[in-house]
């Protein structure tokens, strides 16, 4: 069990600042996912928490104790690395025993802990194998097992699934979720895959360019994204952002028509960014006098239970619309795209922040 608080954490490598003041609290037993595009600083933040890199500025408390400058092994943290980082010259048992022995446990205790971890992760028949004799999924389990035997308060997982194939990925994802329930430890999980973030997290921390964009439950992030970055990062296919001007109830896109999606937020200069997810858009063949934006179809993507239609609006903005699987549009067909009531998000045209209607 661990409770973390990060206060104004900054990190610079030489003159380049990569983290610009991170404030974050993580509660006991929480499963928190750091998500963001590559280079956003999420792995760096994880390494600062682990103690592998020094914090340039700011304070990190773990269970109320200041952790700046404390050696990684004294933080009660275990980490699972992206490349697994198993010791290649040791068998599975020795890999798990290495850290446990360094904790000063008795040989009996070490053996008991390894036996328990091996049972939980179905590694018992593999204990005498070397890492190179294991498959990717098995190596991943050994890496998790190595973390388990240290019985840490806090697990850090750095993109643990990125080296696995798609089928195995969902399997191990499930296993990690099950482990979290079983152990009740705090877990911090770094990924660039928003599906992993959405499925595993109690709370997601969306990062971009060394800053936190938004912290919230998967549902909050999906339903009330704080800004255009979060809005487009979470959800697949991504939310379409349409720059519009508004007069009264009408939102107008130059050269494409206008829509009236309901109550609108106030905006000083009459400009807004309208954000709509594929499921909140409707698409019909163009007829005269439709309310909606005129668009031309680029491509229809058939997925079995539904289909996505990609279309280009008058000003060149590309939209994606979810439709039923029977809908067929030809390329370059003229269509009208309209917004379903309640499905619109509004963002400031200036800074991309969410505007409340």
């Amino acid at each position: 069990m661990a409770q973390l608080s990060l206060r104004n954490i900054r990190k610079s490598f030489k003159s380049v600042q990569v983290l610009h003041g991170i404030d974050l609290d993580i509660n006991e037993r929480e499963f928190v996912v750091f998500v963001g595009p590559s280079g956003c600083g999420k792995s760096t933040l994880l390494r600062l928490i682990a103690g592998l890199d020094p914090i340039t500025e700011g304070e990190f408390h773990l269970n109320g104790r200041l952790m700046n400058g404390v050696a990684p092994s004294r933080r009660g943290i275990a980490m699972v690395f992206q490349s697994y980082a198993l010791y290649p010259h040791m068998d599975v048992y020795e890999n798990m025993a290495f850290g446990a022995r360094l904790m000063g446990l008795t040989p009996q205790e070490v053996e008991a802990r390894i036996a328990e971890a091996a049972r939980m992760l179905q590694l018992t028949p593999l204990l005498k194998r070397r890492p190179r004799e294991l498959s990717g999924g098995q190596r991943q389990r050994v890496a998790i097992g190595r973390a388990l035997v240290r019985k840490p308060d806090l697990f850090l997982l750095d993109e643990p699934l990125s080296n696995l194939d798609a089928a195995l990925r969902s399997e191990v994802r499930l296993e990690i979720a099950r482990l979290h329930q079983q152990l009740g430890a705090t877990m911090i999980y770094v990924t660039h895959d928003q599906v992993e973030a959405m499925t595993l997290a109690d709370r997601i921390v969306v990062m971009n360019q060394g800053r936190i964009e938004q912290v919230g439950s998967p549902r909050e992030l999906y339903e009330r994204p704080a800004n255009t970055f979060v809005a487009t990062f979470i959800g697949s296919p991504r939310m379409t952002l349409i720059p519009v001007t508004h007069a009264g109830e009408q939102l107008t896109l130059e050269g494409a028509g206008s829509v009236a999606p309901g109550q609108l937020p106030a905006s000083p200069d009459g400009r807004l960014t309208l954000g709509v997810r594929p499921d909140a858009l409707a698409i019909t063949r163009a007829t005269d006098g439709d309310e909606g934006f005129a668009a031309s179809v680029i491509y229809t993507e058939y997925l079995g239970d539904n289909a996505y239609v990609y279309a280009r609006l008058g000003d060149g903005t590309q939209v994606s619309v979810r439709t039923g699987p029977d809908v067929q549009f030809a390329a370059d067909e003229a269509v009208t795209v309209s917004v379903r009531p309640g499905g619109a998000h509004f963002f400031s045209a200036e800074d991309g922040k969410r505007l409340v209607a």
Partner: protein
Amino acid sequence: MSTASATASRKAMTYGDRPGMLASLGRDGLLQIILIANTIIMLAPIVIMVFSAFKTTPQIFQAPFSIPDFTQVGNFIKIWNETNFLRYLLNSFFVTGASMVLILTLGTMAAYAIGRYAFTGSSFILMFFLAGLTLPLKLAIIPLFMLMRDLGILNNQLSLIFVYTAMGLPTTVFIMTGFIRSLPNELEDAARMDGASEARIMWAIMLPLVRPAMVIAGIQNVVPIWNDFFFPLVFIQNDNLKTLPQGLTTFMGEYTTDWGVLFSGLTLSAAPIVIIYIVLSKQFIAGMTSGAVK
């Protein structure tokens, strides 16, 4: 038996049937011939050395390539009786062994520091070591002689060990630094999370992984040190301290040389290195090819 030959002939059929096979067979065959020829050229001097060890000097000049009577071990007996052979052998082992221990210990530690830790001047230190590669040490023999004299270790095996260590460090540091740098950082991080100290990370995690490179660096250095004639000749006069190559010159007179005895001495002196090489060759090859395949 019959099924085996049937499969073999079927295999031969498909082998010949495949288009382009003959062409690639021709190229591979040529490569094989070149490699076999190369092997013969490389092995011939060693074979002649071993053959000559069992011949008398007149026999060597009459029929240098003939196969000798291997029961005729007079040369070996002569070496045993007329020289301090065992003494020389032990001296060679001592000097080479001590130099190798120093080279590998110091070289690996230096390479580890240069390869794994970022500190100002690390690349300068590496360049400083590498500069040693470009230095013809034998040119410095006179200052070295005076240095050893002033240190009071002329006629002392320490002088050899120091010179060999200095000679061996550049290549060792060069080979080891490159290898150590190629090891993944995450291994080190993982060990650090496990609570290992810096010394333990080096000893328990990194060193086992760089063993192939250590074998390469070792072989690279052990052969010239074992065979060195020049430095013992200059630094050592006491017969009890002579190394093997130096001691064997007893049989090389100014006017006459007992070639048979000399060759049997050379055979004995080459044997330990050949044995070491054969024992370590698996690791050596592993070291040369590691990094080629992940």
